């Protein structure tokens, strides 16, 4: 299956990836081959078959709405690339003016 560079760039944008031009070429080729491989699925006779979610068809469990986790914010923020005063720091999202 032929994918265009534009399609590959569109998927990369959705996936928050940024392939360089060489990689983009490689992806056009590889993803094309993988999609061709996936095309076999169109042969399957699946009319009326329910898509499967959990092999044992278990339902989502409910529990009491109670606090079960202790507050460990500091432990969790200690491993952040940039956290200060309980906040995660990222480049400015809004213009300063």
């Amino acid at each position, binding site marked *: 299956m032929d994918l265009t560079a534009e399609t*590959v760039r569109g*998927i*990369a944008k*959705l*996936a*928050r*990836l*940024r*392939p360089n031009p060489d990689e983009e070429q490689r*992806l056009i080729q*590889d*993803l094309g*081959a*993988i*999609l061709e*491989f*996936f095309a*076999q*699925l*169109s*042969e*399957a006779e*699946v009319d009326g*078959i*329910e*898509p*499967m*979610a*959990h*092999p*044992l068809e*278990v339902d*989502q*469990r409910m*529990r009491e709405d109670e606090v079960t986790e202790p507050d*460990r914010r500091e*432990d*969790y923020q*200690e*491993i*952040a*690339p*940039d956290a200060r005063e309980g906040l*995660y720091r*990222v*480049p*400015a*999202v809004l213009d300063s003016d």
Partner: protein
Amino acid sequence: MHERTLLEQAQALQDGEVSSVELTQFYLNRIQAHDESLNSFVTVTGAQALAQAEAADRARSAGEAGPLTGVPLAHKDIFCTRGVRTTCGSRMLDNFVSPYDATVVERLQAAGMVMLGKTNMDEFAMGSSNENSCYGPVRNPWDPERVPGGSSGGSAAAVAARLAPAATATDTGGSIRQPATFCGVTGLKPTYGRVSRFGMVAYASSLDQGGMLGVSAEDCAALLGTMAGFDSRDSTSVDHPVPDYQKELKQPVDGLRLGLPKEFFDDRLDARIRASVEEAVAAWEGQGAQLVEISLPNLPLATPAYYVIASAECSSNLARYDGVRYGHRCADPEDLEDLFCRSREEGFGAEVRRRIMIGTYALSAGYREAYYDRARRVRQLIRRDFQQAFEKVDAIAAPVSPVLPFRLGEKTQDPVAMYLIDCYTIPVNLAGLPGLSLPARPVDGLPTGVQLIGNYFDEARLLGLGAAWQRETDWHRQVPPGFA
């Protein structure tokens, strides 16, 4: 000492023949002597291991030791360990130290087991050769020019080389069973939901299942009894009683109906591997098992269906790596978008990025029905095929891998060829069934294996068949020449 199985090590500890500190130091020495060439460990936790071993010895003196107290093991670097980094073989998590333990780690630790370190793996468990790790490939102890299989290649190589008596592992499409067969060790992928996924870094959540690699089926039974069971912290964990696997596996083979699905013995299978599998099947027949020919007609569609589902779930699961809360962050981001995109582009390796891309495509507007939903319908058909088969048979015997361990670099240029290597293990994950990989007669000095597939929660029966085969053979006892 290292020729012994895990249960024999446990016995030696119980008999006072050796202390946990001595046994732990013995394995740490073996890792130091041998792992430079294998690369099976990402992190060796020597000091912590000795501290745990001392605690185990103290518990034993106080009369508080359990059956596995003081026995060392290694964890695949996908299980979160509090205070010890968990990399998942990825640059993205190179600096990640989890603030909590995985349930599997917690339970084995509570049983008194000693962690030797964390084993190498394909990045985020995506791969069949362990060539996708950012820490470099693991080598097969039977032939260093060949791959150990993947994604649990480090765990399999470490157990095969007897650098650890056993290791935890995970299996999404064959990642326990295929490296087990490539390295000549025993590996069990339990029923989906049997072992908690809490603290196990997610790849494809509807398929991922934790298990183990060991020397013998009995060793796997002992570990499963400790690891298995309901966990409220895993929303897909199944509340089903945990039997005494070591007791259950003594059930006789006589009278069991063993299914042989023709789709697993097709022309993709190397004839030499077929001969090894048939030898194992004949041994079970000799012990009284009745052989039944069966068919699983939808099997040929399993591999494409699997890669659609696994990639789709991977693209969603790996969206959490944003360079903000933990993991790799790129230098000097221009803005938030740049921070996300560059951190992810730099942090993920090529195969992971490829699967994120394909999964994103398969879930995108206009394609979801044709790919993801269709694949999940095919998955239902495959599950039904197995359910119909289990009305006629008690277990299924099959090959694990269609090919022998291949050379490093041999298949890295062709992703689809690499995907097809897992054609005999993938259907089991799609159906959520347990699968056991057992060493069989080697071919030209390279390990082969036979796979047993059971009905839901029928691990004990598989382990029993495995133990019966291992009482008659010693393939599982063989240590690679360089590590004797």
